[in-house]
């Protein structure tokens, strides 16, 4: 009985703390995305002929997001019957957007970031310990280009 109560307590903690964290994170993401609208991150391999570039450099941004207990149990139940693991969708979405934001923050004065790529990896993958925390990492990288200012 005590075990069951602890389990229910952990699930409740996971749900309330997890959704509060998620809401806060999304607020921060949309605010910062708004602020960085002037800096496009695109997947083109180059920006024009690059002849007008004064500077180009590699920028990376990386975010690690952990699952909460509620989502973990929910995904475990989902794993029994199959289907879309909706519980994890928002985790990945947050990780990708946070990573892109951090990449932009790495060079806020750039004019454009080209050849943007996003990669994800699961940090707990392959662990023999079943109790290890499922955590995902998103890494965004690209080439930040500074365009020559007219008259220089």
């Amino acid at each position, binding site marked *: 009985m005590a*075990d069951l109560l602890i389990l229910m307590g952990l699930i409740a903690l996971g749900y309330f703390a997890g959704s509060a964290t998620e809401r806060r994170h999304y607020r921060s993401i949309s605010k910062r995305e*708004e602020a960085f609208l002037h800096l496009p991150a695109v997947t083109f391999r180059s920006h024009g002929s690059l002849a007008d570039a004064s500077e180009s450099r590699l920028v990376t941004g990386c975010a690690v997001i952990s699952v909460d207990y*509620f989502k973990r149990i929910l995904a475990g*139940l989902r794993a029994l*019957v199959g289907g879309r693991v*909706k519980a994890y969708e928002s985790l990945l979405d947050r990780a990708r*957007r946070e990573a892109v934001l951090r990449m932009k923050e790495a060079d806020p004065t750039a004019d454009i970031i080209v050849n943007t790529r996003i990669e994800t990896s699961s940090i707990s993958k392959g662990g023999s310990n079943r109790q290890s925390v499922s955590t995902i990492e998103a890494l965004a990288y690209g080439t930040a280009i500074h365009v020559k200012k007219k008259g220089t």
Partner: protein
Amino acid sequence: MKYTPRPITENVNVSKTSPLREFFTLLLGILAFLVGVYVLLGLTVDLVAPRISPRLEDRLAGLFTSFYAAEDPASPQRARLQALLDDLSAAAGQDERQYQVHVVPDPLVNAVALPGGHIVLFSGLLDQVASENELAMILGHELGHFGNRDHLKGLGRGLVLVFLSAAALGVDSKASRMLQSLLVTTEMRFSRKQELLADAWGLELLVRKYGHAGGASDFFRRVHEQEGGKRFSYLFATHPYPEKRVRSIEMFISEREIPVGETVPFSRQSP
């Protein structure tokens, strides 16, 4: 090409369904499925249990040794209880099985019939017992469970549940270990009907040994008086109301016109 900055307003990558709703739908669905399978297999087990051979049963007995691991085999009480049990099982003549009694120090007022012919008495029960006749009634009751194969029926359902949880969640998962610990407390009980039948069996043995039914209902009456008006706690219990048991035992005695004689005293301290 012109770049037009636009904020993300619509997010197609995240489903907009309620996770709580998904959680409860999945949980209830899976539980309903497991309960369905459990009930179905449980019904089959009730058919199978009476056909399990004593040899197979003795092999299953190994699963339950933890129940009486805490007992003190050298206690003088145990020898006396064992002698009483041997008398009763000889009086019953139901099979050649060697029944063994175990006394476990625990305040629980209860006794358990385990596979392999093991009867576990908790010392809390011995504290409440006043006469040897009452004890014979209790031991006879447990022998009745063996006679009716109730102990295997309980165990069989339990095995089905352990099997199911192990298949669904893995043998070593926290949840399936939790289920197994729950089993020990819930599954080794029997239905009210089984208890009343075992009472009748115990009474029969009591009369065969002592020639009268003295002390048959004393124990249950005492338990009832001590519990007072705590009726509610019996709502979910599988044992019948002690009051109801007393009544059914006394009805049995008066119907069959069994004489009621003097009881032989028993106390924990006497050897």
